[in-house]
């Protein structure tokens, strides 16, 4: 069955949108799919899953070979965002304007996760920032008295190998001790050119966190004072947290049966 043997998201095949392939239950399977649309507004389709149980290249032995499931992360939120989110976004736009940076140029989209009506008390705000304006956004968030996100809780990376042109995401977690608020910045860069300006000049604490993200994902933070590996040995080849880096492991015998390594076991997603 060709569907199960082709990895999803190949260049010659258009990425199906959630409502095309899923039908009435799509809302239960993919959060945020009720406002589907083109990229930038609707849910961000980061991957398309085909088949089931991780079967590949052996024909449709599972009977699920024709299954196609897009993986869509929540898309851009619509106003009102709820709570203090609207105010903070407005203030950020004002502060950026004083530095001659248009808000729409710096922030690709505003995501509220989850966006419900009425707004959930547990909703989290994510600003998707373009790499060029990351430092301006960080400075505005840290220094403006109405924003004052003075504490950075580090950087983490996420790898979406099928999200073409946006494979590597760096996620910054900011906290405002003054106002008791939290916010997330997300920067997406292509795997072919994985460069993000280093935020260490604004948040010195991100020094080790950026080293860790470089070590595990291969994102290069330009301007970092010493972007060396931190957890892996200096001469280690590859970046282990990427999805194309194997987990490794050997089969283990237990009471006569053989337990395969975790990454070769049956997959349910």
């Amino acid at each position, binding site marked *: 069955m060709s569907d199960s043997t082709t990895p999803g998201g190949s260049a010659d095949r258009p990425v199906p949108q959630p409502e095309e392939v899923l039908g009435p239950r799509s809302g239960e399977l993919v959060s945020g799919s009720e406002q589907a649309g083109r990229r930038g507004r609707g849910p961000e389709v980061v991957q398309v899953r085909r088949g089931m149980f991780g079967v590949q290249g052996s024909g449709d032995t599972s009977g699920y070979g024709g299954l196609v499931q897009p993986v869509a992360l929540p898309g851009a939120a619509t106003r009102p965002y709820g709570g203090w989110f609207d105010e903070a976004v407005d203030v950020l736009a004002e502060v950026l304007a004083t530095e001659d940076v248009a808000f729409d140029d710096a922030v690709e989209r505003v995501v509220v996760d989850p966006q419900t009506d009425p707004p959930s008390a547990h909703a989290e705000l994510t600003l998707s920032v373009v790499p060029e304006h990351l430092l301006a956004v960080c400075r505005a968030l840290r220094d403006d008295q109405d924003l004052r996100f003075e504490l950075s*809780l580090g950087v*983490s990376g996420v790898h979406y190998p099928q999200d073409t042109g946006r494979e590597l995401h760096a996620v910054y977690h900011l906290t405002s001790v003054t106002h008791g608020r939290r916010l997330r910045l997300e920067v997406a860069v292509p795997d072919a050119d994985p460069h993000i300006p280093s935020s260490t000049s604004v948040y010195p604490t991100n020094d080790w966190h950026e080293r860790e993200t470089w070590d595990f994902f291969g994102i290069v933070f330009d301007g970092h004072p010493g972007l060396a590996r931190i957890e892996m040995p200096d001469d280690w080849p590859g970046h282990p*947290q*990427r999805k194309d880096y194997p987990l490794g492991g050997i089969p283990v015998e237990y009471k006569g049966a053989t337990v395969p390594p975790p990454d070769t076991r049956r997959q349910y997603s």
Partner: protein
Amino acid sequence: MTSGTFTATRPPTADEFDPGIPGFEASGGDWDEIAREAVGEERIVVNMGPQHPSTHGVLRLMLEIDGETVTEARCGIGYLHTGIEKNMEFRTWTQGTTFCTRMDYLAPLFQETAYCLATEKLLGITDDVPERASIIRVLMMELNRVASHLVCLGTGGNEMGATTVMTIGFTAREEILRLFEAVTGLRMNHAYVRPGGVAQDVPESFEDQVRAALPKIRHYLGQLGDLMLANPIFKARLTDVGVLNLAGCMALGVTGPVLRSTGLPYDVRKAFPYSGYETYDFDVPTSTDADCYSRVVLRLEECYQSLRIVEQALDRLEATAGAPVMVADKKIAWPAQLAVGADGQGNSLDHIRQIMGTSMEALIHHFKLVTEGFRVPAGQAWQTVEHPRGELGVHAVSDGGTKPYRAHFRDPSFNNLQAVSVMCEGGQVADVVVAVASLDPVLGGVDR
């Protein structure tokens, strides 16, 4: 899923190295001579660790010293990196707790709770977690905080030669580990907190066991205070050592007792309450001295505050006896509580009798939930808890599947170790030990 076209996974080639960085080639010569040629003076670089009794595990400290003065201090970490975060991407959401509990092995219940709270946020069931489960989580975390602080104070004393401080600290911790063993069956690596609640209810008469242990713990804490707080040698070693002011803490993202020793009462339990902490009555002790001695005082005081919370949690535990400890949604909750049988702890016999003898559907449901796991809606969540060492953050990303797409742990020890340079440079070599002990790094959490 592998396509082999991602260029950044290969090692860098020779032409990619920055030519602006000077390189020194050594071929069989004496490193001292090379250093003299390159730097023009003699430097002594001392490697402390990674196998050194006073570095709290496998921490490597690279100290450049001039006489007894440390002119430069750098940390080398990664000796205990085991790829826990990567492993979690290959197990179900429930199995994730058995992995994250092994990160910071002195405070396992905090990783479990933070991870489960993040998972619950993604599932949208934060408000559906039963009250009794939250009470048990709070009770276990606060006992764990005392146990962790006791190790910090005990080993910190031991590193300065005060062996009695260590023995008292570990004796007191033993009381708490016995309580953990009664609840989870284990002294560490519990995997007790699960998405949706906890693995099983506390045993009968557990409240009495805790109430019996509390005076003993208080007694040992009092002894520790007597041994340390007014001891002139102890004070001379710690006062005005390892100073890090508020601006330094904020810039370096240092949280926990080190931040509170500068006067800022930032505690996640108060600032961003979780598990019902806003309903407990406790204080956040602070100091303005910002030195190692004030951090010892704060840790001791935090132990007493934790015991206050434990007492309140015990009252609530008695009031909610028999209430559920797992979320009601059968599509998420583990199918059965564990029970003690003739051959040890395992699935409850009543449950096995029901699924094997009476209901095929229940058997299928059990099998599906245990082998496949539940699905978590696509999205990302960030959850922090007040860990004994600072703010522990979990960044959980789901792709709608049965396994975490990414689970990142912002471990406070990892972040706080960045402050070693600032706290040690310009001080004495002996002060390095004190300063590192006041940060209380646990390398299992640092390296993950």
